[in-house]
């Protein structure tokens, strides 16, 4: 820019950043009506540009597809859970509590009924670094943020009712742990180097279903 004329240099700076001009450009403006007008135009334009970039997020929320909306909420829950200190303590009961909170936050997932295309399920499992040959139709699936990792959050239609299956690769539980909260019955199960959480609102999780699911999970 050293060989530019003061006029073209002023134009460049005004066009690039009309709110923050170097001293030499401010000095040039004192004696150049054309550049002052150009600055005023660009300041007006910049206000419009700022308003245009401020997208209407409320519209986004209203129009988001259910699965996406739920996933957005999940990421917020992730952050809030972290702030709550859950992050620091990880016994199975705490893990169960977080699983319940996560599922409650995505309660609409239990209202899905159409089986997902295999490719979509495969993508969810890939993101969660899990393999699951489901014996039941999968009607919801999302690779949700959970304790700093992606987990496969699935909903399957079992013969006994709708069931949430969370494939949690990065958390190990020592033994089977049953839990119950807010009308939900659940169980945490060891699965190789990770764990599986199963939840249902239709009674308890049948042992046969739990065994069948765990046997089909691989990392």
């Amino acid at each position, binding site marked *: 820019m050293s060989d530019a004329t003061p006029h073209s240099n002023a134009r460049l700076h005004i*066009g690039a*950043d009309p709110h923050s001009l170097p001293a030499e450009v401010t000095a040039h403006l004192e004696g150049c009506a054309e550049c002052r007008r150009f600055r005023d135009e660009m300041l007006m334009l910049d206000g419009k*540009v700022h308003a*245009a970039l401020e*997208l209407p997020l409320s519209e986004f929320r209203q129009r988001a597809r259910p699965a996406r909306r739920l996933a957005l909420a999940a990421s*917020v829950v992730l*952050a*809030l859970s972290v*702030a709550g200190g859950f992050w620091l303590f990880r016994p199975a009961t705490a893990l169960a509590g977080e699983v319940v909170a996560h599922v409650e936050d995505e309660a609409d997932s239990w209202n899905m009924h159409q089986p997902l295309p295999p490719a979509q399920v495969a993508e969810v499992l890939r993101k969660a670094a899990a393999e699951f040959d489901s014996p039941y139709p999968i009607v919801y699936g999302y690779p949700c943020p959970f304790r700093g990792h992606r987990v496969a959050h699935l909903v399957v239609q079992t013969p006994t009712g709708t069931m949430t299956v969370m494939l949690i690769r990065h958390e190990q539980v020592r033994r089977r742990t049953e839990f119950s909260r807010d009308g939900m019955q659940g169980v945490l199960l060891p699965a190789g180097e990770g764990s599986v959480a199963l939840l249902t609102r239709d009674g308890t999780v049948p042992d046969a279903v739990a065994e069948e699911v765990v046997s089909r999970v691989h990392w």
Partner: protein
Amino acid sequence: MNAASRGTTGSATFTRLLEMLRPDLMRFAWWLARDRSVAEDVVQETLIRAWKSREELKDPAAARPWLFTIARREHARLFERKRLPTVDVEEVEALGDPALATDGDAGLIDLRRAIMKLPEEYRAPLVLQVLGGLSTAEIATELGLTQAAVLTRLFRARNRLRTLYGLEPVEDVE
């Protein structure tokens, strides 16, 4: 105050920062991706990565450019990994994307459409500057450009948008 409680306070502060900046992060991601689903993925990945790297943020006042930098890299990573298709403005409009909703201020929608059509090389620095609050020097560092190149790109971006308001484009700069 012991170390554990100090850590908890830091986590809470950090979480509040994320919550406060999340709307603009979503907007920024959308302007990068021009696709709502991709933008949501970028935001989620950014939040996870930011949490893991929170010790790197020494000054909360720098959180916005720090997060935007992470988001831009996550978008690039996603773009590279998924080979995302080029976004077509008319297609975005046809899908009823809220960014181009037809029930809003017509002038703003025209401007959004024009910003969407800007080449990436002009749109990225403009969004970093106006939405992210980055200086031209910071944008230069972020994009691996000289400051002079950033000035030129910002000038050209705004110059292209002038016509929407009945203003003649001024002579280009070299």
